[in-house]
């Protein structure tokens, strides 16, 4: 047996002091030599636990073997079989919780850098368009499917259905396709050019993309069902949650969705070249401990806030954000205030937030989420001066579709009820997947749901 190589090849990154001044991508990616070097570490285990750890079951040992042999064309071919959006997954998947955690080398604390290799393959494909093999598209079935939402669930479902020979139209409410990949995840984590190119790839499979179309307002799902054989709802979780505490509507308080949409989708960081502005101040508090909170904090740093705080009511161990993102935020000088929760916001005479009163928290017994429940310490209130607050507590599904579609069943959280394996909703010929079903989750779990639904829709259409 070959000697184990436990030296994971580090992913080159922009230095923190440089990257906080720009919106360019933080991680720079492997070149061919680094990728081959890292690929050589893969043991090619016959049991391939990594494939089972991947929500879309990418043939990970397969593409890594091809990289090792410097057969990058083959690596791309293998990747595209299961994953229409590798450039996105390679960047934003929580590999440390999926494929890498089950890697045999993870037992030695040195899993193969699967995410970085996936990203390498995707970037290589984009740089060598002439060498990338064309996808095989099944003969036309004559069946038509409408996909609502062009985020990760919708794009994946559409791409798979198109390859199966169905005619697919994607509808999106915004003026660009990509959903949360465009409006939510910042440029420095996921360049919009890459999202656009992966959207273009989906379009190249024959998928029609209709933007600026709000399903539920302009056209209802029932009307779509008159023209399409099946409908997939990948409408995401676009509705921001607020704290519902006094002063929350003061000027200078944003939902993370608003702040990120301004910065990412509308490119407010380039104001006044771009017309949408975003306020620049001195001290901003981001409330929440998830990836969106990290994204908002790091954007705030980049647009010029001097002091950026993450205010989280639990402790570091309970934070839902990816370890890598927390580390990036720490490197960039984001200040973490754990076990802290706002009680109310205090405004100045012109209606702008100037401070927030916070509680110190302690952790009690575990709650329904399995994490220890934060409890305010009596008498612990203190004042934190801020000139902006970004509320990043999570999102719930937008009710525009569910409220205009009779027959769709929703939970009390507003998520759509589906069969987990197939994505079938309670309404005939309607499938759903992604955050619209799960509430805010990950890009890859949405893609997995899009994929499963595509498979079931295909089987159903062929039986029609």
């Amino acid at each position, binding site marked *: 047996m070959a000697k184990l190589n436990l030296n994971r090849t580090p992913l080159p990154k922009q230095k923190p002091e440089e990257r906080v001044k720009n919106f360019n991508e933080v991680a720079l990616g492997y070149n061919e030599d680094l990728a081959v070097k890292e690929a050589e570490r893969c043991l090619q285990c016959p049991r391939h636990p990594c494939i089972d750890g991947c929500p879309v079951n990418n043939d990970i040992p397969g593409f890594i073997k091809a990289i090792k042999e410097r057969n990058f064309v083959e690596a791309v071919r293998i990747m595209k079989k299961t994953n229409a959006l590798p450039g996105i997954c390679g960047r934003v998947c929580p590999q440390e919780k999926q494929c890498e955690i089950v890697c045999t080398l993870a037992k030695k604390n040195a899993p193969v850098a699967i995410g970085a290799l996936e990203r390498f393959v995707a970037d290589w494909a984009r740089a060598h368009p002439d060498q990338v093999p064309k996808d095989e598209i099944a003969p036309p079935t004559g069946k038509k499917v409408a996909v609502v939402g062009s985020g990760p669930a919708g794009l994946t479902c559409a791409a798979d259905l198109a390859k199966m020979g169905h005619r697919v139209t994607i509808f999106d*409410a*915004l*003026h*660009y396709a990509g959903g949360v990949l465009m*409006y939510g995840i910042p440029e420095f984590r996921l360049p*919009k*050019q890459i999202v*656009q190119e992966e959207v*273009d790839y989906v379009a190249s499979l024959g998928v029609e*993309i209709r*933007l*600026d*179309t*709000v399903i539920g*307002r*302009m*056209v209802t799902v029932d009307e779509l069902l008159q023209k399409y054989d099946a409908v997939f709802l990948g409408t995401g979780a*676009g*509705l*921001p949650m*607020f704290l*519902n505490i006094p002063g*929350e*509507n*003061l*000027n*200078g308080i*944003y*939902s993370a*969705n*608003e702040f990120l*949409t*301004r910065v990412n989708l*509308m*490119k407010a960081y*380039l*104001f*006044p*070249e*771009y*017309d*949408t*502005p975003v*306020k620049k101040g001195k001290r901003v508090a981001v409330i929440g401990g998830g990836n969106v909170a990290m994204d908002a904090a790091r954007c705030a740093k980049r647009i010029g806030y001097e002091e950026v705080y993450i205010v989280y009511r639990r402790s570091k161990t309970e934070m839902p954000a990816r370890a890598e993102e927390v580390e990036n935020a720490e490197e960039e000088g984001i200040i973490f205030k754990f076990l802290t929760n706002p009680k109310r916001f205090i405004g100045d005479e*012109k*209606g*702008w937030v100037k401070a927030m009163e916070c509680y110190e928290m302690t952790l009690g017994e575990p709650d329904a989420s399995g994490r220890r429940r934060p409890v305010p310490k009596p008498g612990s209130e203190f004042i934190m001066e801020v000139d902006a607050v970004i509320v990043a507590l999570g999102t719930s599904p*937008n*009710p*525009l579709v569910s409220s205009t579609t009779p027959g769709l069943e929703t939970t009390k959280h507003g998520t759509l009820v589906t069969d987990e394996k197939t994505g079938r909703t309670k309404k005939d010929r309607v499938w759903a997947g992604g955050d619209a079903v799960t509430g805010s989750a990950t890009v890859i779990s949405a893609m997995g749901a899009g994929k499963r639904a595509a498979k079931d829709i295909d089987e159903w259409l062929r039986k029609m």
Partner: protein
Amino acid sequence: MHEHGKHGCSCSKEPLWPECKFQIVRKERLAQNIDLWEVTAPLIAERAKAGQFVMVRIHDKGERIPLTLADWDRGKGTITLVFMQVGKTTRQMGLLKAGDCVPDLIGPLGTPTHAEKFGTVVCVAGGVGVAPAYPVARAMKNAGNKVITVMGARTKDLLFWEDKVRTVSDEVIVTTDDGSYRRKGVVTEPLKEVLQREKVDLVFAVGPAIMMKFCALTTKPFNVKTVASLNPIMVDGTGMCGCCRVTVGTETKFACVHGPDFDAHLVDWDEFMARQRVYLEEEKLSLQLWENRLKGVQ
């Protein structure tokens, strides 16, 4: 980054932007700095109801702004938008001509104004608010109400659509702040007189926030239900960002999905007006830079 022909453009002439679909078929100067566009948008026209709005984005680097529908023609497949040139975006909109296209027009959005037979309805419209008031007055009239419209502007040159409003109103009262046309004063004065004069079942107000606030204060002692159509800053306009949130009674509502119409007696007007001013400095800077560039070109 944008895609050619993303809307499947079928413009006959060279469009201003490559990805057009929504063509301006008619442009009209209604009053000083107030323009009208009639735009091809068959899907929106088909669905449009009084009180709803569209989001407009006029170029790749543009912002998304909400505009309440002023009219629509289902037969022609067009919608009518009226805007006042105040900032960079509306100034740029003013430069577009008939034949030009608008890359992004999204709607109809928002909950339509609730129109049923109430009895007597007073529509109060201030400034450019006359445009969105017109379809509401029409809907109220069609629902069998007696409609009294009170419309006002700062001065005569800013008034428009008096004739059009008359076709859907039983009575029209026009005011100008400076007295240059019809009655001198602000809209709340005749509003109060009407309320004193006869039984009114509903007041609908649309216009500057300060006018809507004072309409609410005027009708409150008469205990007449008053609805205001709010015009906050929006980014997406579909419930995603919460920029348009407004305190109504004890609740926070999103104007883009729960509104734009709310009970004017419950709206926190001072907060609403503060929120409208969040980006005043940036708006000024944006306009100034654009004007400088225009001058540089000339």
